[in-house]
């Protein structure tokens, strides 16, 4: 697996693990909070339910107290509006809005909440009829045009003889609903055929449930109390936080992966470039000089210190390899004795010149042989022979141009390649060389040294052998013609 993929994979794995852990933590927190939230809602719902029941109980208790008062009974019997008003006034409270004393004909004898409004007929009201027929009524009905929670009960003299009705009522209004949900985060809504009330402006309650009440169905149809959350703001905030976290983590993951991707690409590209140079060198697509040039380029570029150091190290290594290679090349192409190019090098050069001649260049060659060299060796020994060879080579080298190639062809035989040189030029060079050697006085060899030289020029379609053969033929003629002379091809 590539380094890039490895790093990316490992990093993504770690990030994914962190993300999963984060998701797990957030989800756990969310579930814990939700449970607490649900629990709180449940407690508040029960609280509201209890408050509602307390209000109903309050109605019943008040009615019971009044029913048990002998003065109230006397007041009802004697239509003592004032006494009944004074009694009921004592019991009106936030939990009781209306206290009515009604006779058996359904005529109101006294109203606790309105001193001078009485004597009207309420016999047709459902709660009055129910109380007259069934002794009690606990439910919702219209009382003086207002929807109320009503408890109505028959009043009996001596506990037996019915003498009238007491109705205790609590108006179903915004204030009642508000008092029921006070101090909670819940809302309550009341709906009937006449009105719809709610402690919230929200049209729909969240997690709504009905109040469990045993109320008699009166003339008010479809009356119901529903409690629920005004809004799941708290839970929504939690959900939103969770979603935001997930999105944030996801987004961060993408950003991190992209950042990692580009960072890796940037850094690995430099390493990769260096590695590629080495690979190319290994696979012979680059020679060492090109490697050096490329690495040199890298070190010049703006790059990281680490890469720069590696590039410098590689550069130094490459430099050493190049030096070594040059030394080896020189060693392999040089004659050890004369320091001239050896025969292998000469053959390469000749091949090269023949190739270049295909593109229009031309050249001449001179085959050189020291005359009677065997005699020198035999007479003066090999040491002197070598001395002659070394100094002859030096003299010849000193007499040629920079572009000319001179090498030891073998023994006392030399080959001179003269690029861009005509036959005449080659003959001049050869003659000059012959003359120089002929007139040179060797330090350890007392006699004159002469050379025979055979010159040939390049012809179209030449091969190394063909051109060498012609030069060799010319050399043969020079030998045969008395040596110490220059001959050229015919």
């Amino acid at each position, binding site marked *: 697996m590539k380094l890039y993929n490895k790093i990316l994979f490992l990093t993504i794995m770690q990030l994914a693990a962190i993300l999963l852990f984060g998701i797990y933590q957030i989800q756990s927190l969310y579930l814990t909070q939700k449970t607490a939230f649900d629990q709180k809602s449940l407690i508040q719902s029960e609280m509201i339910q209890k408050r509602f029941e307390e209000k109903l109980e309050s109605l019943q208790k008040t009615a019971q107290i009044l029913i048990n008062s002998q003065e109230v009974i006397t007041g009802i*019997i*004697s*239509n*003592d*509006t*004032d*006494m009944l008003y004074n009694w009921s006034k004592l019991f009106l409270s936030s939990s009781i809005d209306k206290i009515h004393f009604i*006779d*058996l*004909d359904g*005529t109101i*004898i006294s109203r606790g909440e*309105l*001193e*001078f*409004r*009485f*004597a*009207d007929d309420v016999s047709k009201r459902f709660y009055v009829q129910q109380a007259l027929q069934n002794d009690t009524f606990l439910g919702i009905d219209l009382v003086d045009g207002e929807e109320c929670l009503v408890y109505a009960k028959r009043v009996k003299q001596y506990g037996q003889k019915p*003498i009238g009705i007491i109705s205790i009522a609590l108006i179903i209004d915004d204030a009642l609903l508000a008092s029921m949900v006070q101090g909670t985060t819940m809302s309550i809504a009341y709906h009937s055929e006449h009105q719809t009330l709610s402690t919230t402006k929200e049209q729909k309650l969240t997690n709504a449930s009905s109040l469990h009440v045993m109320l008699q169905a009166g003339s008010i149809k479809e009356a119901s109390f529903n409690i629920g959350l005004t809004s799941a703001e708290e839970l929504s905030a939690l959900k939103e936080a969770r979603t935001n976290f997930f999105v944030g983590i996801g987004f961060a993951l993408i950003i991190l992966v992209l950042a990692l991707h580009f960072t890796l690409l940037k850094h690995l590209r430099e390493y990769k470039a260096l590695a590629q140079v080495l690979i190319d060198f290994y696979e012979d697509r680059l020679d060492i000089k090109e490697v050096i040039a490329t690495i040199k380029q890298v070190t010049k570029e703006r790059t990281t210190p680490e890469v720069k150091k590696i590039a410098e190290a590689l550069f130094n290594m490459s430099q050493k390899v190049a030096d070594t290679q040059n030394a080896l090349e020189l060693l392999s192409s040089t004659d050890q004795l004369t320091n001239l190019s050896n025969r292998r090098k000469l053959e390469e050069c000749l091949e090269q010149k023949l190739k270049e001649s295909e593109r229009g260049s031309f050249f001449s060659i001179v085959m050189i042989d020291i005359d009677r060299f065997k005699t020198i060796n035999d007479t003066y020994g090999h040491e002197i022979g070598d001395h002659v060879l070394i100094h002859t080579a030096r003299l010849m080298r000193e007499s040629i141009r920079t572009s000319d190639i001179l090498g030891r062809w073998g023994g006392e035989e030399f080959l001179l390649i003269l690029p861009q040189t005509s036959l005449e030029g080659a003959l001049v060079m050869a003659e000059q060389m012959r003359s120089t050697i002929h007139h040179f006085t060797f330090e350890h060899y007392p006699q004159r040294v002469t050379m025979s030289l055979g010159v040939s020029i390049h012809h179209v379609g030449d091969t190394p052998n063909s051109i060498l053969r012609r030069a060799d033929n010319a050399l043969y003629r020079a030998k045969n013609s008395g040596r110490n002379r220059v001959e050229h091809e015919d």
Partner: protein
Amino acid sequence: MLLRFFLFSFLLFTTLSAKEYTFATYPSNTPAKIIQALTPLMEYLSAQSGDTFKLIVTKDYEELTRRIEEKSVDFAWVNTKNFVLLKEKIPSLRYLVTYLEHSKSGKITPYYQSFIVARKDANITSLEGAQGKHFAFTDKESTSGYAYPMMIFEEHHINPYTFFQKVFFLKKHDKVVEALMSHSIEVGAISDGTYYTALEKYGDRLTILATSEPIPLDAIVASANVSLKESQRIAHILENIPLDAPSNKAFEEHLGWASAGFVKKDEHFYETFKRTLKVPLYETLQ
């Protein structure tokens, strides 16, 4: 020196002989108004007699009667009916004076009247026309709010408990007016003073269907606690209240009563009321 001793002794005697009397009255109006109306009278009595008069407003007629019987009060302001009944029950009760009022005719008189009134918008023009309506008395113990109206009904051969659709008891005269104005009832029994006050307050919105014969005004009595001599002394002080006394002004201001002080009448003055007691009570348990 001797003179100074006598003066000091007299003052000491006077201080030691000063008494604290309890003066009770029934709640003909709201207790706060009654206290404001009667306080100047108590101050007048205290100043004139050298004694201290403490005012008590009872819860109702019944309590006033009970307290007189129990002798827990020394003087009491009672209405005619109370006086007659109490006198029969407690012969030792001493009559002191009768309340005087400026009548609407401008005369100062110890009488007043009871009216049976109806709301004008109920279109009732006669007592007979009020049949089947809602009616209110003040209190069964009230002279002008129950006893004399019952006599009116008797004269018209009407049993109010069957004649009207429903009969209510509102305790106070002004409450009858308020109930009429609130359209809770169509007909009610009130004193003439209450009627004229309503006339001023609400305008001509009531029709007088019937008028009672003159009713002796309220009396001030003393319980057996108070000696005859002391009773006479207090009665004399009451009789001599000037017309412009603060007590008269307080009655006018707080109760709307055109008070003119008090007059001492013969005890037989109240005997005319006894006729009302002969009226059969039509009240039945409903």
